[in-house]
């Protein structure tokens, strides 16, 4: 077998290389035609060639003294013919994860910025003067006590934003992972209540009342997946539920799977019949949400359905007829249904 050193640069980045760093200078000085020379670095005869390719260059080198000029030329041609396909594969592999990381970075950064902004309205480091340093805790306590309502709201908002930021990581990891769901029995009422709590303040702010029914049954779910799904659901509810309205949550036996239905009825932005299926597609938002400029990245419904499916459940929507225009927005009485397997 003939040993080769290769180095391929595309867009200024090495995409394929096994070239030792001590030979980098030799590569830089290599002309386009094949050279058969004594290598000043290794003191051995070598053949090497460097050729410009689209957005970069390809370099091949061998110290094998059995390698003829024609065979080296042939190998270089084969090498060149593989680079295009390889570069494309690298691009395909890198691009989606790069986009996903960027989206994650943006979303988490956004939540952290809001938290910082919220806290700064209460207490900012710039407000603490040098003379207050020795009494920094009592200084902060006084600030908080004199703005106790703002402080309470800040804490409630922060708890929600932290939950959202963490769920961004969860979504990034869980959605892209191939792990099996960890199904354990959980009290469905408790799961719903815990998932709802971070969003209660925002709903209260919009004067949306939540009526949570009773249920003592356990369902078999992957808690992380379902908590993530519900977090996205309530985040949407905060944006899309009509202010001054009610959200009614009830529990009943499920006919579609041997389990429990969690039925959530609310007056929220209308969903067109043509959008009933498409709103579950990654990146697609409802047209009313877009019109109201409340749409996000179109990931909420996609995450909800994916997580519920992975956990062995179902998520369905019964869309209501648009019946009201409030502030130019079209609302409907929509029913959202989570169906979870029941513990046997």
């Amino acid at each position, binding site marked *: 077998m003939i040993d080769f050193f290769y180095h391929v640069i595309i867009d200024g980045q090495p995409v394929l290389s096994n070239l030792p760093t001590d030979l980098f200078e030799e590569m830089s000085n290599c002309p386009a035609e094949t050279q058969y020379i004594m290598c000043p670095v290794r003191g051995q005869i070598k053949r090497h060639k460097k050729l410009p390719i689209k957005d970069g260059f390809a370099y091949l080198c061998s110290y094998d003294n059995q390698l003829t000029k024609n065979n080296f030329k042939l190998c270089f041609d084969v090498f060149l013919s593989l680079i295009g396909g390889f570069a494309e594969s690298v691009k395909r592999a890198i691009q989606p994860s790069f986009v996903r990381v960027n989206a994650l970075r943006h979303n988490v950064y956004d939540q952290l910025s809001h938290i910082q902004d919220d806290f700064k309205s209460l207490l900012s480091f710039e407000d603490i003067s040098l003379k207050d340093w020795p009494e920094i805790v009592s200084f902060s306590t006084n600030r908080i006590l004199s703005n106790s309502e703002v402080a309470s709201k800040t804490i409630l908002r922060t708890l929600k934003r932290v939950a959202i930021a963490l769920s961004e990581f969860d979504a990034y990891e869980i959605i892209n992972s191939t792990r099996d769901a960890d199904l354990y029995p*959980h009290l469905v009422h408790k799961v719903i209540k*815990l998932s709802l709590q971070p969003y209660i303040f925002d709903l209260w702010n919009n004067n949306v009342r939540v009526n949570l029914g009773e249920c003592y049954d356990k369902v078999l779910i992957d*808690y992380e997946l379902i908590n993530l799904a519900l977090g996205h659901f309530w985040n949407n509810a905060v944006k899309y539920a009509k202010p001054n309205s009610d959200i009614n949550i009830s529990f009943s036996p499920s006919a579609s799977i041997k389990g429990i239905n969690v039925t959530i009825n609310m007056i929220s932005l209308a969903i067109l019949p043509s959008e009933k299926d498409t709103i579950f597609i990654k990146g697609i938002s409802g047209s009313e949400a877009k019109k109201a400029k409340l749409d996000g990245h179109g990931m909420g419904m996609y995450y909800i359905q994916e997580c519920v499916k992975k956990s062995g459940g179902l998520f369905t929507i019964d869309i209501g007829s648009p019946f009201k225009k409030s502030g130019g927005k079209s609302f409907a009485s929509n029913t959202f249904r989570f169906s979870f397997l029941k513990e046997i």
Partner: protein
Amino acid sequence: MSLFKKRAHFPNRTMEQLKSSVIILFIDNEDFNLISELKEKEGWRHLTSVSDISSLSQPELVDAHIICTDIQGVGKELGFTDEGLGLIEAIHSHYPEKKIIMYSSEAQGRIDAFHPAEGYVNARLRKSANRYQFETQIERLAQEAFCLDACAINIQRILNRELGTDMSIEEIKKGIERLYSKGKADSRSICKVFGLNNAGSLASIISLLISL
């Protein structure tokens, strides 16, 4: 009167009883408020925490039934280069009956899917998991260790996986009741009751079950 009076049926242990008896140890080099919350708000009475383990015969470790450990920043005192994962491996090798919950800031605590410690933990959690998630896993493992029904389900899984033996839950429960009534949990008695050549990990599981 006989000194060897037969014991009654295996007790039906409630969650309240488990909370009063099960010993939980947290190993974490950082302050973790959740530990005190589990004690004060959820009522797990025998809950202690240490920043690391300096010896595998450390009393807190010896006594614990359930061990919750971070996998970063611990295991250093015993010189494990793979920190908490190395510690988990060592704890499992010394005390195979102890239940282990591993948690970390990483996804599912799956830092290294190929590390043997992966196979020794009974539950994995994110450090950011809420109190309910820790509580439900602790409850589940406490029941698996000390309640007849949950323990029998676990033993059925082990018999099937490790020994290729298919036994019904009822048969397993009857076997445990027999061992319990005689106060025996040695390998020989277990093999006899379950018709096995090798008790495997069953000895430590049944011994723990009837020890409470």
